[in-house]
Structures are given as C-alpha cells and as structure tokens.
C-alpha cells in the first residue's frame, strides 16, 4: 500500500474520475441497448411508467457523473502540476501549442456538449413527456399533446445517441493523454 498521502490523493481522484466516466458511458449504453428494448416488451401504458422511472433515476446518475468528471478532472490536472489556482491557471503542457493542451480543451468542449444535451433532456424534453390530460381536454388538444410527446421522445432518443458517441470520443481522447494527446 502506498504510504504517501499524495499518491493516495492521485489514486482517489483517478478512481472517482474513471468511475464517473464508466457510469456515464456504460449507463448510456445500458439505457439505449438493454432497458430501451426491454421497455418495448411490456404494454405501452406500463412501458411509459417504466420509461419515466428509469429516465428520472438515470438523469440523477448523469448529472452526478458529469459533476464528478469535471471536479476530479480539474483536481487531477492540478495534482499533475498542469493547472494551478493563480493566473494564468494553465501551466506548461496545457497551452494550445501542445497536443496535450489541445486534447484537454477538446475534451472540455465535448463535456460542455454533454451538459447542454443533458440540460435539454432534463429541462425541455422530459417535462413535455410528463404532461397529463385533465377532464374536458378536447380531442384536438389530445392529438396535439401526443404529437408533442412523440417529438420529445424522438429528440431524447437522438440526443442520447449523440451523447453516447461523444462519450466514446472523450474516452478515446482521455486514453490518448498518457501518450501526450490525440489532436
């Protein structure tokens, strides 16, 4: 066992970072290719309830993972001596002249894409899916609401697939950092 607390910090940051990336990426794969098709095997009304429960729970995992990825990513860079808390923050190796710095920047931008997509799903499309009909709703309103729900579901599916592809690219970039970066 390492005796140096500094090494323990390095291991803990790395562990939390890797675990959060795994939770995000593996969770998205499981939601898309395991739970999604399983949902189709039960009656539509029950499938909708299951979809809401699984999405609500999974969104907690998504936001927790994205938060941990950012915090531990910054702490790891600081621990590696590539970042500090005083101006200009970025130390040698993190400038855009180096492949390492460019790869880190690209990873951060892609993380922002995941945050934007996550926000769209959480605050725009999910609430549209949750709308219920009240007594006295006209047939035209029901049709319009159902169309809006179907559109929202399609958008969530598209965004989930984009997120999955983006997360795989981030993993590839992260793996490349050990050899100095990818781009």
């Amino acid at each position: 066992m390492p005796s140096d607390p500094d090494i323990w910090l390095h291991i803990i940051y790395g562990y939390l970072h890797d675990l959060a990336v795994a939770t995000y990426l593996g969770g998205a794969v499981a939601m898309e290719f395991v739970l999604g098709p399983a949902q189709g095997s039960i009656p539509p009304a029950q499938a909708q309830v299951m979809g809401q429960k699984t999405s609500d729970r999974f969104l907690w995992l998504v936001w927790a993972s994205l938060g941990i990825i950012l915090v531990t990513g910054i702490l790891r860079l600081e621990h590696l001596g590539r970042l500090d808390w005083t101006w200009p923050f970025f130390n040698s190796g993190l400038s855009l002249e180096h492949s390492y710095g460019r790869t880190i920047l690209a990873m951060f931008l892609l993380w922002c894409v995941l945050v934007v997509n996550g926000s769209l799903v959480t605050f725009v499309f999910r609430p549209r899916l949750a709308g219920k009909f009240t007594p006295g709703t006209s047939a035209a309103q029901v049709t319009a609401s159902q169309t809006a729900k179907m559109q929202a579901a399609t958008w969530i599916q598209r965004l989930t697939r984009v997120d999955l592809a983006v997360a795989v690219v981030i993993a590839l970039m992260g793996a490349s950092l050990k050899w100095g970066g990818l781009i």
Partner: protein
Amino acid sequence: MDTFLAAIHAVAWAVHVGGSITMEWVLRYAQRTMPPSQVGVVCKNAGTRYRWFALASLVAVGASGGAMFLRIDSAELMTRTGSPELSLGDSYGRTLLVLTVCWLALITTVALMAFWLHPAQRKRSSPDMTSQAIAAERLRIGRAIAHMDRALKFELVVSVISIGIGASLHAGGLF
C-alpha cells in the same frame, strides 16, 4: 495502437461497470412499482441482453488488456511515477495480478449467470403437474432468482473495486 488499445480497454470496462450500476440502481428501482408479471417479462428481456453485453465487454477487457500487457516496455515503465516493475516483488506487478484475478472472477460470474442462473429461471410447467411438483418448481425458481441476485451484487462490487485497482496502476499500484 497503444491509444486504440487503451481506448477499447477503457470503453469495455465502462460498458461493463456502468451497465451493472444501471441495472442495479435504475432497473431495480423501476421494477418496484411494476406488477410482478411484468417484472418477470422485463427481467427476462433485459437480462438476456445484458448478459451478452456484459460477456462481450469482459472479453474485450481481457483481449485489450492482454494485448496491452504484451506491449508493456519495461524501460518505458521505469520512467513512470514510482518506477514500477513488472514483477511480483513490486506493487505494480502484484496489483496487475489482483486485477487479473478480479477479471477472472467477473467473467466466471457473468458466464454462470448467462449459461446457468438465467436459464434456470425459466418456468417449466405441464398440465399434468401435481401441486407438489408446482410447489417444488416455484421453490427452484425462487432459489435461482436469489442466486442471480447475489451474483449481480457480487459482480457490481467486484467491478467497482476493479476500477479502483486499475486507477491505482497510474500511481504504481496498490498492493
């Protein structure tokens, strides 16, 4: 090539670990509000898909990990933090061995689930079954579900620990 192998390795671990977390944390939660008959249908459907994903990802972890192991350059290894060595006399070598044992435990558990525990949950019924036979069949399925539950929890714990063990390799190992 090293980057490609490391990316395959990382994605395969992520699919496995993230998948088991999602199955435990998301699917189990959703099942609580579902009627028992539909829980069975969803379990069967999701379980069948999940076992192949888990097996494929663990095979990919083994294949990419083995290829990375064969490509380890001892001289390059010495330049890393803590100057690790690929021997059981060094923390790096011991940690790699423990990680391999964890992988073996995981692939054995998932193979058991895929080829024994999951098929054992199928209900065998025929019109001429006695009430005793029906009760015995229910007991057998109950036991298979309990075994599956324990296997899933063991798989989740070992895979989460494995991520920690793997993360420690960057700092020279844990044991």
